[in-house]
């Protein structure tokens, strides 16, 4: 089974790599955006789906990665291949710091705390004008020439996201991933098997934050700019909706969610301004009729 999945994954990546042959710039942009959000949503699902920790502030790490990379690249003129890893290290450290406070609490309190930290990061980004440009954001975040075209940037994103998704897949299926699920099911029992439950959750929080940071760094490069909006709670909500819509009980669910949401919003916005209304209806339908998301729906169909 895992082998056939791996083959399927490799096949999809292979097909995607052929996309630039279509010559459509629009398709390149759309696909790149989808890929970035696939990574962002999957990183969040490590927390929601596996650890059962619902974060309302995941965009904070997306923004930290994005701003970190943009500032290093633009303000300090550090080459991308150094700036990106450095931004990730920064995100990892901040994730660990914020996480160490958040995992002390559980359920609603955890969620509220992540929301509070998310807004705090937003406020820092917004106010620290000299470093972040405040509400003007950072413009002219230029990629090096080798990924300067939509097609080459798409290929670069495809490569990075594929490797990151592979890493997250391993995390999800590692002893840590399984332990997270056990803690979600029964924290007291897990503790009395000898598991330091909070510390395991902290490692997961740090991993999730770091990969969100990677998505954020790609996002800043993709837009050649970054704004405080990327840390705002709406951004956290959007990625949360992707996870729920796609299905949090499956590793690939958030991937489907990100794809569906982005493609749907693009097409809807072309014909009507009522996208938020439609989104609300989709979300309601998901929660009432297929709480396991699109992935859950597909799985159920497959079993029938």
């Amino acid at each position, binding site marked *: 089974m895992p082998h056939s999945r791996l083959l399927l994954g490799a096949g999809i990546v292979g097909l995607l790599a052929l996309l630039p042959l279509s010559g459509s710039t629009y398709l390149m942009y759309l696909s790149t955006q989808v890929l970035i959000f696939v990574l962002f949503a999957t990183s969040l699902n490590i927390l929601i789906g596996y650890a059962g920790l619902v974060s309302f502030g995941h965009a904070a790490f997306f923004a930290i990665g994005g701003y970190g990379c943009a500032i290093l690249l633009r303000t300090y003129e550090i080459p991308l291949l150094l700036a990106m890893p450095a931004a990730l290290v920064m995100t990892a450290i901040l994730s660990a710091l914020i996480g160490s406070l958040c995992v002390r609490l559980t359920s609603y309190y955890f969620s509220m705390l992540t929301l509070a930290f998310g807004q705090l990061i937003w406020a820092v980004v917004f106010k620290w004008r000299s470093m972040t440009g405040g509400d003007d954001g950072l413009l002219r975040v230029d990629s090096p020439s080798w990924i300067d075209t939509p097609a080459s940037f798409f290929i670069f994103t495809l490569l990075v996201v594929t490797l990151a998704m592979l890493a997250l897949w*391993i*995390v999800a*299926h*590692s*002893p*840590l*991933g*399984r*332990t997270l*699920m*056990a803690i979600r*099911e*029964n924290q*007291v*029992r*897990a*503790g*009395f*098997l*000898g*598991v*330091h*439950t909070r*510390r*395991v959750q902290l*490692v*997961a929080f740090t*991993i999730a934050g770091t990969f969100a940071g990677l998505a954020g760094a790609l996002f800043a490069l993709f837009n050649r700019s970054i704004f405080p909006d990327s840390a705002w709670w709406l951004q956290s909500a959007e990625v949360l909706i992707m996870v729920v819509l796609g299905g949090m009980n499956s590793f690939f669910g958030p991937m489907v969610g990100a794809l569906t949401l982005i493609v749907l919003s693009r097409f809807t916005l072309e014909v009507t301004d009522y996208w938020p209304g439609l989104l609300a209806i989709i979300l309601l339908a998901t929660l009432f009729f297929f709480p396991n998301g699109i992935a859950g729906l597909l799985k159920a169909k497959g079993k029938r």
Partner: protein
Amino acid sequence: MLEIKGLTKTFSGFTAVDNASLIVKKGDIHGVIGPNGAGKSTLFNLITGHLIADTGEVRLHDKRLTGLAPHAVVRRGLGRSFQRISVFPRMTVWENVQIALVAKDQQEFCFWKPLVSQNEQIARLLETVRLEDEAQVVAGELSYGRQKQLELALALAGEPHVLLLDEPTAGMSPRETEDSILLITRIVKDRGVTLLFTEHDMNMVFGIANRITVLHHGAVIASDSPDAVRENSSVQEVYLGRPTH
């Protein structure tokens, strides 16, 4: 081996455990009895670090356990089952035991490689508690007695020196009770585990224990061999609820 000295725990004025002391020797099957509310579960929670004692201490192998968090207590060689069933209900029996082994091998932080199932060890543990046929059943769907067996497997996975079982037969049918008594005594003997357990079923306690401690209002009123406890006048008075003649 396990030494409990002067443990006291009060909850807002109510003394749940009152200056309790007892010693569990290696190889003992040590039962703790007492009427409902005598403080048996509180005593267990104090030993395992789920509650923090006001005074007193617990030592295992002459090392202090008091003040350690539950996960650290387990690492010192204590295993336990809970009075109310505590398994991972949405995972299969197999996966439940797998988690216990991940924890025992301290692999829970390993995120850089996929989980490799220790099939042999899991199978052996399931065989020990006679759940080999239910390996792929989701734990929450097992019967009550079977879930208790699974709990036992989880506790044993850590290869504890001392096993604490909180009412191992509570809520079981007479048939299940009998089976599980046989199972527990066999495991204790085969594995050379020291057993400390609470139980309300007197037949079971006097049937298998070689030491019995009686708690009343949180205080230890007797800690002796079954025969001596049976003859103890204050035990008869306060615990069995009838005066001696």
